[in-house]
């Protein structure tokens, strides 16, 4: 990826309307996540009882929820929470999955057989179900959600990486490196890894979007991040009880989830095109 060069990569992303839109949305949310606290007018948990249930106004851009909390500030802080949680979770899953996939695919044999039958067993369960099972044992907290993301997505990434590795393992340049007497790690990381990167980049972006969905789903079901954290899924779950009183407390977090997930997905398509050079 590094030798693709940043400017052409970005320009490819912006060459198509869809991926340009997606990339812009993701960049916007990243900006909000990083700099949000600078422009969020209130703390996400501050309750102003006298302003409870106020509709959107210049004071409260997205209105105030049933307890008098500023919905805009909650959505902004929520972006920070969800992007860091989903981002870190999917990053760790990608790293772990890449390691498993590389080593297992390259070594093959019984180790590969055992590990991937185990992964297959995990993959046969719907990821939300697996997540609920895990959270049931770990108890709901931010760290548990992080562990769940890594646990659920590592096998998926590993499977993608392994399939690419299996495709290149017997190619000439690998055999050449082996004949040169290169060390195993060198072959794995310098010879094989570069061929995996395009698929990995797309997979990473996808995992990120699904992780956002997973974090908000868990929050929505009440087993993920606990109140009063401004978790988008949690806000949706709380907001649906008060839909007739404070619809804005529901629509804005719903909109944020949808927009970010769609944005990441459109960007992922762009990344795939950019790396395959089919702009």
């Amino acid at each position, binding site marked *: 990826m590094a030798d693709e060069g940043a400017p052409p990569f970005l320009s490819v992303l912006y060459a198509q309307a869809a991926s340009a839109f997606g990339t812009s949305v993701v960049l916007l949310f990243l900006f909000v996540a990083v700099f949000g606290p600078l422009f969020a007018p209130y703390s996400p948990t501050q309750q102003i*009882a006298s302003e409870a249930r106020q509709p959107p106004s210049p004071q409260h851009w997205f209105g105030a929820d049933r307890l008098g909390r500023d919905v805009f500030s909650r959505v902004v802080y929520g972006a920070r929470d969800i992007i860091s949680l989903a981002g870190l979770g999917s990053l760790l899953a990608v790293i772990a999955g890449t390691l498993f996939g590389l080593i297992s695919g390259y070594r093959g044999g019984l180790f590969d057989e055992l590990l991937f039958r185990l992964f297959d067993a995990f993959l046969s369960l719907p990821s939300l179900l697996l997540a609920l099972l895990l959270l049931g044992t770990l108890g709901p907290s931010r760290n548990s959600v992080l562990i769940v993301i890594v646990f659920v997505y590592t096998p998926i990434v590993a499977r993608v990486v392994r399939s690419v590795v299996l495709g290149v393992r017997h190619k000439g340049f690998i055999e050449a490196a082996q004949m040169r007497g290169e060390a195993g790690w060198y072959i794995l990381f310098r010879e094989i890894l570069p061929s995996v990167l395009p698929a990995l980049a797309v997979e990473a972006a996808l995992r990120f979007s699904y992780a956002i969905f997973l974090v908000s789903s868990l929050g929505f079901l009440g087993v993920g991040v606990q109140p009063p954290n401004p978790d988008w899924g949690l806000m949706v779950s*709380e907001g649906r*009880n008060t839909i007739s009183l404070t619809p804005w407390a529901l629509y804005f977090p*719903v909109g944020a989830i949808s927009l970010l997930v769609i944005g990441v997905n459109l960007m992922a398509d762009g990344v795939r095109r950019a790396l395959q050079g089919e702009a």
Partner: protein
Amino acid sequence: MSAHQRLRSLTLMAVVLIALLAGCGAPAASPTTAPAAQRQGALRIAFEIPAKLDPAFASADSEIAILNAIYDYLIDVNTESKIVPRLAAQWTTSADGLTYTFTLASGAAFHDGSPVTAQDVVWTFDRLRDPQLKLPTSSLYENIAGITATGDKVVTFKLKQTNPFFLYDLSDNHALVLKAGTTDAATKFNGSGPFRVVSYSPENRMELAANDKYFIAGKPGLASLTFIFFKDQTASVNALRGGQVDLVMRMPSALFKTLQSEQGLTTVSIPTNGFDEVRLRADRKPGNDPRVVKAFKLATDRKAIFQTVSLGLGAAGRDSPIGPLFKAFYSEETPLPARDPKAAKDLLAQAGYPNGLKLDLHVPDSGDRPDLAVVLKEQWKDAGIDANVVVEPESVYYGNNGWLEVDLGITGWGSRPIPQFYLDVMLVTGAKWNEAHWSDAELDKLAKTAGTTLDEAERAKAYKDIQRILIERGPIIIPYFFAQFGAVKNTFTGFNLNAFAGRTDLAAIRVK
């Protein structure tokens, strides 16, 4: 997965999510048609999943609602908190207040055909006061010296000392009359009540049909009754809006407000004696220091909670279970100290917590309790109390008696017709549901006086003093008395919501 497929599956997920949000459900299955002429119609009620269906152990609204349909109380309490006949057609009290004699209604019979006799009543109450069963409510009957069948249909209770609330104790939620010798009450359901069980599928639904031989004329009004169980109250309310059920009771204030604007429903809201209690364990650190207790009380703004959490429905609380509906017993004599987070902080520092306190706040996921927890967290923050809110399903919160163990918790207490119940089971030293593990000699003495004296003025005085003690030093905060809510499809009539939802008389409901 191609980009197209992926977008399609994402769209699908989004649609499902939106559908969930909109609360739209599949159209209702058509209700079964009524066979009998006078009893007609089927009512489907949404309730939380019942856990304990042996009457002796039941306590939750859903459990009591089911059992109240299958069994009968010896005597009942109506919506005005008055004692009314049920199995007992009449009763007399001796002049010294120590002997109560009940005469059972003729015609009352269990669903298996055998008549309800005095022997069944004796057996039932002997079981409820059997120390071997270790019932949390057995203290209600400790005062009974003996129960005897003095005739086929006549039962006599002899008391050790006077108890002005004895009739209410006999009508406690779990005091349903079973057939003598019943061994499998939790599964067989051989009651004498207005409905008999047709089928029960745990955690799913229970189908009941009218007891055609019910001894109370004109009841039940329906041909059949179905309890459909839901994990949470939002799901119940959505089922009502989607037409899968006809009646929902118990829900958060905000959800009720939502239903009020819905077409085709009759919504009912009544004030109750039920309350949410925030309590701190007083038998170990940090709650065993009175300064810490005081700090929690000073850090709390009850008025703000009543406005934002209860939306002004119900009544504001004063840290005591004796609410404004107990007119003569309720008192506002002792002022409630104004909120003062600074003073609370100082008290914590004096108690050895100069950097504040960090505690888990356990809360069940029903009613307005999660909102209450979030508001408390914010209010307490100013006093240096860092409460980590842990929301748990009701079954987890109450399961394995976890609620009695935790240091800091919020417990919902259902409405009762008399205040003495709360004192006896949750506040006096050693009471099984004394969740704060509190012991206060003065309160114990006053509770005893209030519960035994036949002098109304003396009792009112004792209750007044108890309210003062609770405001001054009780390790509990009662920020509000909640309203009870119910919503029923407007094709039904006779729905008379009880303050304790589970005690609502379902046999009185009929089709318009």
